[in-house]
């Protein structure tokens, strides 16, 4: 499944500043693993060692928020990674 992935600013150091990349995976979890193969290190910044999405990170699949990495993906889906609004 080839998926379009929207990359937030804080992660673009991994994608050579590209805001949109392509990756593959039949589920969100597999997709994140494929992203890490293409852009080493990106997974651990957004998913912890127990496989949970980090506290200030959100994933949206075709505009619907995913609370874990289980949702299935199909060809031409769009995944948006968002850094939650917080800071200071």
């Amino acid at each position, binding site marked *: 499944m080839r998926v379009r992935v929207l990359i937030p600013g*804080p992660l673009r150091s991994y994608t050579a500043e590209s805001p949109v990349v392509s990756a593959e995976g039949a589920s969100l979890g597999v997709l994140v693993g494929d992203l890490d193969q293409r852009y080493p*290190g990106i997974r651990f910044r957004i998913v*912890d*060692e*127990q496989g949970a999405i980090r506290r*200030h990170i959100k994933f949206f699949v075709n505009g619907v928020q995913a609370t874990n990495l289980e949702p299935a993906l199909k060809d031409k889906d769009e995944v948006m990674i968002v850094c939650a609004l917080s*800071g200071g």
Partner: protein
Amino acid sequence: MAQAKTARERRLTLLVATRKGLWQATSDAARRSWRVSGPQFLGHIVHHCVADPRDGKTWLAAARTGHLGPTIFRSSDRGRIWHEAKQPPAFREGSGRVVDHTFWLTPGHASQPGTWYGGTSPQGLFRSEDGGATWRGVDGFNEHPQRKAWCGGDQDQTPDGAKMHSILVDPRDASHLYIGMSSGGVFESNDAGAGWRPLNRGVRADFLPMPDPEFGHDPHCVRLHPAMPDRLYQQNHCGIYRLDRPSERWEDLSAAMPKSVGAIGFPMVLHPRDPDTLWVFPMDGSSVWPRVSPGGKPAVYRSVNGGKSWQRQTNGLPKSQAWYTVKRQAMTADVLAPLGVYFGTTSGEVWASRDEGRNWKCVAAHLPHIYAVEVA
């Protein structure tokens, strides 16, 4: 004994790790003038940046951002080019534990180039044997059946999260290690981290109901003397202590500090050539633990007799209305003669003394909240 270097032999660089990135302050050969450069990793929370004394060129920085998970950055050319660790410290999958950030970095023994130790929040111990590129948990601690009892639960955490810090390697024996934990106390390993035991006798823990608990203490900073490794000092939540091995009982030095100042602080610095000389930076530990310079009058305290008595060193520091907080990694010394002593404040100032604390000069200001100051 550490070799004294004259001021002409080299310029100094201070690695200033802050809540918003990494800065450097570089001196001239006399340590009179300083130039601030940076930032690197702007926006990253850099808890610690440490230079490797074994090769003089490797620097490691422990970083995360408010949103992104923790990682380690590595440079093999004194900070010009950085690479991210391929496998940062992370707990075992299935353990249920998550590294929030790496808090402390310690280069390994001189006989083990490329070996580093990392201490995390929550308390975890990690080792790299390839210069910080990949990290593995030290199972002897992380998987120890007593670990949970030693570290306590959420209510035992310090406000910024529980920390493993003060990872000390005996220069005579690479297998002999100490760690400090807030909370948890001081622990010792004689087998390169395979086994651990508490080493807290004589240390007060007046926030606990037990009169002399085996663990659960709150060491803020523990130092081992490089030239006399059987001597350790400890700045604790409950005072200042010294331990001369093979004794197992820490000696409480707190009463030697003036009552009006108290014996509470975070950092502690040892003179690398004189085991009897050390510095602390007292902070207000009264009432709700303000952790600022008592009375708004910052002072460094030096002892030249192993903590039996202390001298107040304030020349050059503000005389009033200066409410400094200095964190446990934010005070350090160089190896020159006379010794240079340095500290950074949470209000973004770096102070330097090139004469062992007699005179102080502000060498950087307006930086973000400083977490750590180390000499490179």
